């Protein structure tokens, strides 16, 4: 029988822990609302900002991390695709900020995949790469290199 695992997503990273090890974890609640927890002799100190079933917000040194704990059932649901939030597909790329179009990295009709560079936009004297969140086909390019664009302006239509 395979070992039982708990998967925890914290701040966008996935971590795997063995279930029987977790059973030994002990946490101490200090008077000042801070929690303390010994792990491999290290004292991990932090604040639990919110805890809702398996969803947490943990604060360490002032920085907040969203945490999602997934037990075996959640993992099975994940695999079946039931727990996945419906990803909405976008049909156009809009300017996230006002700026200047420095470079257009695609051509009309091109097939692009997740994380492909689409466009470089300059704002605050810095270049920002605009990427595509999922695969798509470039339908129409509505801007030109060197053009100033407003926030929310449609730059590229997708199909």
């Amino acid at each position, binding site marked *: 029988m395979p070992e039982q695992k*708990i998967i*925890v*997503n*914290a*701040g*966008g*990273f996935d*971590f795997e*822990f063995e279930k029987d090890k*977790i*059973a030994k*974890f*002990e*946490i101490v609640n200090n008077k000042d*609302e801070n*929690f303390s*927890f010994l*792990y491999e002799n290290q004292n*991990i100190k*932090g*604040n*639990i*900002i*919110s*805890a*809702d*079933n*398996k969803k*947490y917000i*943990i604060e*360490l*040194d*002032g*920085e*907040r*991390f969203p*945490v999602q*704990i997934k037990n075996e059932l959640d993992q099975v649901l994940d695999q079946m695709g039931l727990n996945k939030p419906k990803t909405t597909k976008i049909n156009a790329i809009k300017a996230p*900020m*006002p*700026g200047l179009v420095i470079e257009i990295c695609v051509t009309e009709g091109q097939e692009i995949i997740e994380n492909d560079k689409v466009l470089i936009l300059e*704002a*605050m004297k*810095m270049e*920002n790469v605009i990427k595509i969140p999922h695969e798509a086909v470039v339908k129409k390019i509505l801007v030109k290199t060197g053009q100033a664009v407003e926030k929310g302006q449609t730059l590229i239509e997708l199909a």
Partner: protein
Amino acid sequence: MKKILVANRGEIALRIMRSIKKMGIKTVAVYSEPDRNAMHVRFADEAVCLGEAASSQSYLNMDKIIDFATKLGVDGIHPGYGFLSENAIFAEKVTKAGITFIGPEPASITLMGSKLAAKDCVKQYDIPMVPGTDQAITDIPEAQKIAASIGFPILIKASAGGGGKGMRVVEKAEDFVEQMDRAISEAKSAFGDGSVFIEKYVGSPRHIEVQVLGDKHGNIVHLFERECSIQRRHQKVIEEAPSGILTEEKRQKIGEAAVKVAKSCNYVGAGTVEFLLDENLDFYFLEMNTRLQVEHPVTEFITGIDLVEEQIKIARGEKLSFSQEDLKINGHAVELRVYAEDPLNDFLPSIGTITKYEKPSGEGVRLDDAYEEGMDIPIYYDPMIAKLVTFGKDRATAIQKMKEAIAAYKIEGFATTLPFGLFVMDHEAFQTANFDTHFVKKYFSKEQAQAWQKGKARKAALMALAHWNANKDTLKTINIENRNWKKR
């Protein structure tokens, strides 16, 4: 002076106005349309709108600023840093309009604004500069002689090059001829011009600068050094005063050199002389900044002197009220520039609305900021939100205070350089003052930054697991933010 206009925005406009007000002088703010609700506008006694968002239409519009100043009966203009602060034409126009420019003479600005002219000017004062040829060279035997006299390692630079292109480091004399050959042919094919410069290669450069103050009566003093080597994109992020490595003897020498540079251009007001420091603590003149620097608060902390107040007194024609001997270093100060940038993503801008804003406070903590909860970070200007400065009796105390202040400073809505500040404060190289301008490249590449972030996330994961494990049978819900004590 009865009324001073501050030709700037953001934290620096606010910081300058505070000193002006303290001196019993009226303040005038200028602003662009999107800055109508900015804190510097609300703080000032009077305020005028300059125009549209773009700097060229607002904060850089000299004639408009001077026009308004004349109409409002302003008798002094403080330019802050950036924008018009090192613009000799502006300084000239202000003076011609019968208003005092709070800064140096236009001639000093022009002279120090040109790197070549500045080096030429300070040469006669025996200021150390990075040794090398001051003219392009193609003659190999001649170059070999010069290289030997400079000492290895040396750097060969294409005179037409830029951005690291056509640069070659030569470690030892035997390699020189071959490397020179290749550098010349490379320069020829890349730029159509084979001439090169040779200079000493500084492998582990630190950026050290010295604050100077000069009055209109010929007195010039220095207010010790600032260490500004922690940079990204060649821009400073963390500064401190004094430097963690200068010896008392070097401190005195670099200070004297800075005063000589200021004298060479008859400097009046607050200025900064920048030096490059190598691993042997030898320093070389880089350039002079003819304005108040972003990082001036660290100097204010260790000397107890309000630099803006001094600038105004100097502009009024007063003599400096202290001599070099009166100035002493007391304690240590560290500054973190809080930028709206994502340190985990190559420090790219990360802008938006401030959804939560809680300031750190306490003894030895100074926050120069100009934002509040609910405000947007405008994209038109510099992405710096605030300067967090801490002070302690020694370097370790100042660093510890900075760590606590960072943890207490809550900015939500976008990524900032606050976590990077904590990374640096916790880093052994910083704690032992053993770092140079390559710090980010060496220790905080995108991969290293990601791994560091993952380490913290793992701790958060463990903490949540421990809590969940202890409470999973009782299903308790926590929401600290809804508790009364948090609402204060």
